[in-house]
């Protein structure tokens, strides 16, 4: 039977991938995972009796990611992320190229290839929008909490989430649905 340490260590690749997706910063992701593994090893007793190691570790990792996001938010300059989205509409605010029908996209949710395309699109989002979006849709935060963590006003927060959604939709349109 494997000892606890090697079981925990075996989850490292999964945790790293999870943290990278959230943080988009290799160093920060590795730090967060390292802290998680250390905390897990120190807290083996807290795990006793729980059935799913990965779920338990992911729970710890989420806290480390939130700490890291706070640090990154303090360090990252806020100005950025503007521009190209404006080009999606004309001066009167009409679509230049209106979204078409995606025909039964739910069928894609089980397809690994599609989820990988989604990840690639996520990786291409501007930093601040991506942070807000991942906190909202991946970690399941309420908008108020995201604003607080990122140190921005609610209005700005909605704009960040809007930009992330617009950019993701556009990216999937071009890289998946138009093909």
């Amino acid at each position, binding site marked *: 039977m494997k000892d606890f340490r090697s079981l925990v260590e075996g989850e490292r690749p999964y945790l790293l991938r999870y943290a990278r997706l959230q943080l988009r910063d290799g160093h920060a992701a590795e730090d967060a995972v390292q802290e998680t593994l250390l905390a897990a090893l120190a807290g083996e007793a807290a795990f006793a009796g729980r059935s799913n190691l990965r779920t338990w570790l992911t729970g710890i990792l989420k806290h480390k990611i939130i700490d890291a996001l706070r640090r990154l938010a303090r360090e990252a300059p806020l100005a950025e992320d503007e521009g190209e989205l404006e080009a999606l509409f004309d001066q009167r*605010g*009409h*679509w230049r190229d*209106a*979204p078409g029908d*995606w025909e039964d996209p739910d069928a894609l949710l089980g397809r690994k290839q599609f*989820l990988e395309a989604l990840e690639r699109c996520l990786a291409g989002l501007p930093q601040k929008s991506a942070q807000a979006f991942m906190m909202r*849709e*991946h970690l399941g935060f309420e908008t108020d909490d995201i604003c607080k963590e990122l140190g921005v006003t609610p209005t700005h927060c*909605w704009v960040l989430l809007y930009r992330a959604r617009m950019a993701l939709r556009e990216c999937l349109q071009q890289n998946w649905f138009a093909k």
Partner: protein
Amino acid sequence: MMLSCKEATHLVSQGLDRRLGLAERVALRLHLAICDGCSNFKKQVAFLRKAMRRLAESD
């Protein structure tokens, strides 16, 4: 008062993050009733939310 598509997409997005006011909901519904592009947009961002959930669960 008609919304532009740009305004409508902002409201669609915010509708996923806060409860829209009555006037906003009415204006948005009017716009969506006549605009296929924004109706598709609304379905697509709802789908994005679902896809993100799936991504969070997958390994």
